[in-house]
């Protein structure tokens, strides 16, 4: 697992969570620009998944594959669900959900590093 990439994921998702939290305080629903922010995080996650797959295939690290891919796939699912929620619910609660989703992505990143044995 590339640590720099993981740190980027954590930094971006925590920033997104902070942005959404600001919207919770202001009593506003998620806006499209935040979803673009989420798309950037998602893009980095896809890059990370590809890199992890390549590393796993070439260097055969001592990693539980099923566990790793379970986390990778779960992590990829979180933000799209929050985005769907944002479209369905145009109140501050969509911002609350986005805060939660972004923090979950950051936490799963930490677990991924543990699984990979980097932490």
């Amino acid at each position: 697992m590339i640590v720099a990439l993981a740190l980027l994921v954590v930094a971006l998702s925590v920033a997104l969570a902070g942005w959404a939290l600001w919207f919770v305080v202001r009593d506003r629903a998620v806006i499209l620009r935040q979803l673009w922010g989420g798309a950037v995080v998602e893009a980095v996650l896809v890059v990370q998944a590809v890199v992890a797959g390549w590393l796993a295939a070439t260097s055969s690290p001592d990693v539980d594959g099923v566990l790793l891919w379970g986390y990778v796939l779960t992590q990829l699912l979180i933000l799209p669900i929050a985005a769907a929620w944002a479209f369905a619910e145009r109140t501050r609660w969509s911002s609350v959900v986005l805060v939660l989703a972004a923090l979950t992505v950051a936490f799963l990143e930490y677990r991924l590093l543990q699984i990979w044995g980097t932490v």
Partner: protein
Amino acid sequence: MTDIAPRSTASGPGRLLVAVYGILALAATARGIYQVAFKLDEAPVAYLLSLVSGIIYVVATIALAKDWRTVAWWAVSIELVGVLTVGVLSLTVVDDFPDETVWSAFGQGYGYIPVVLPFLGLLWLWRTGRPATTA
């Protein structure tokens, strides 16, 4: 203010509850399926409980989102008993819990959210069950 009917469990702060339950449902069920499918013989008690806890979270999530109050009461209550029982057992009968489950050590691996959540869930069910005018 003139609303007499009980509020839906999925309204207002209930959305947050549904979202947190949803994430735990995903986490616990995925973990449970993985543990039961790939290493059940290592710790059958802990891993089956993992899967059961995941299923309870799924039921609780759906019940809270759909405002199925009776189902939600049952699911959240079972969850409360489960997390307290497994929390105590995982610290005392360590042999049966060699690996982590969602409920081990009162949900330590999940920021203790699993032990706080059922209390919030019951509080929320109780609050929304009363007419809004008295709240």
